[in-house]
């Protein structure tokens, strides 16, 4: 069997299709798909300073790699942001990989840690409380990214969220009746245009985990697999298993979830567009309440 476009041996059969591509043509396909997503959703503008949230995993490393390739010759500024949550034996190896890549490719890297920002590592926060790790981690990570982006003059944050992640999140919000959380999903997040909220963009919105892993492997940016010790406690893991089972039995399920969600997203956004943005009375971060979720959590943890 050959690549669809040449006689070379294929490296992937694209999801939900019979199209097989070799390394060269898969890389072309991948870059085109990213460029198309960026163009259709007006994700990036000439005057932008883009902050790329990088963990060292295959999604964020591929994002950093491809955005650097596409935008390096332009005036668009790219900055990498990494957060050390303080998870023993998990983040350390990934961080070395990020630092090495940024140094080699001359991308400015800013690193932050929960320990410095919140005086405790995630490990300690979880040890001292009965909180679910993923909930705590997500709230603090979002706060650091938004606050630091504002400080650094970044006007958009790019994340490596992919089709699989988004399909899982849509289902999770449905299962938990959390429509408000769904209103901020989509390729470009946010409901309200407020200078305190940094817009988030997801250039990998229509790419699957398999495509991204293939891209990362082919371009030598796939580091050794390290699993977060808290992942098993997450609600997401159950939804992930369920969705993968469905996708196996009914190919196209994940894409159909995304497509039907995008069709109703404008209606969901419309119903939340008048939500008020306050400044947190403790830290001044933007919030829909008087005190932001991060400060509430910090009080509970202390």
């Amino acid at each position, binding site marked *: 069997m050959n690549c669809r476009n040449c006689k070379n041996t*294929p490296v992937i059969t694209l999801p939900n299709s019979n199209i097989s591509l070799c390394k060269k043509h898969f890389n072309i396909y991948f870059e085109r798909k990213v460029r198309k997503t960026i163009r259709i959703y007006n994700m990036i503008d000439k005057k932008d300073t883009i902050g790329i949230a990088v963990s060292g995993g295959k999604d964020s490393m591929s994002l950093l790699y491809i955005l650097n390739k596409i935008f390096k010759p332009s005036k668009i500024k790219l900055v990498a942001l990494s957060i050390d949550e303080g998870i023993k034996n998990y983040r350390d190896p990934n961080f070395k990989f990020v630092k090495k890549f940024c140094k080699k490719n001359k991308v400015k890297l800013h690193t932050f840690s929960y320990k410095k920002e919140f005086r405790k590592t995630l490990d300690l926060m979880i040890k001292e409380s009965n909180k679910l790790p993923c909930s705590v981690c997500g709230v603090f990570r979002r706060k650091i990214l938004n606050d630091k982006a504002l400080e650094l003059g970044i006007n958009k944050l790019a994340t490596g969220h992919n089709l699989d992640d988004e399909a899982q999140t849509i289902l999770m919000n449905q299962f938990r009746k959390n429509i408000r959380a769904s209103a901020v999903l989509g390729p470009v997040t946010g409901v309200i245009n407020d200078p305190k909220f940094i817009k988030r963009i997801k250039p990998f919105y229509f790419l*699957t*985990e398999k495509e991204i892993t293939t891209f990362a*492997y082919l371009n030598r940016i796939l580091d050794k697999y*390290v*699993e977060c010790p808290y*992942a098993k406690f997450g609600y997401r893991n159950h939804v992930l298993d369920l969705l*993968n089972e469905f996708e*196996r039995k009914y190919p196209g399920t994940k894409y159909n979830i995304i497509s039907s969600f995008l069709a109703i997203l404008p209606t969901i956004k419309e119903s939340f567009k008048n939500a008020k943005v306050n400044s947190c009375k403790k830290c001044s971060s933007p919030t829909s309440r008087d005190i932001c979720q991060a400060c509430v959590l910090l009080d509970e943890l202390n």
Partner: protein
Amino acid sequence: MKIKVFIERTNKREVVEAKDLSELFKKIKIDPNTVIITRKNELITEKARLNNNDEIILLSVISGG
């Protein structure tokens, strides 16, 4: 055919008797959509032909975090 398989996510090594990758995945109970397959440091698809004593590595596509 005997195929030597290394599953990166679980750090497990197995020797599996299978005529092709489709049969191999059924035997080791792994969903092919959740992995990429390498042989001699080259990526191969699920339709690739196997040879006796081939050594393949299955890399997880699922994020660790």
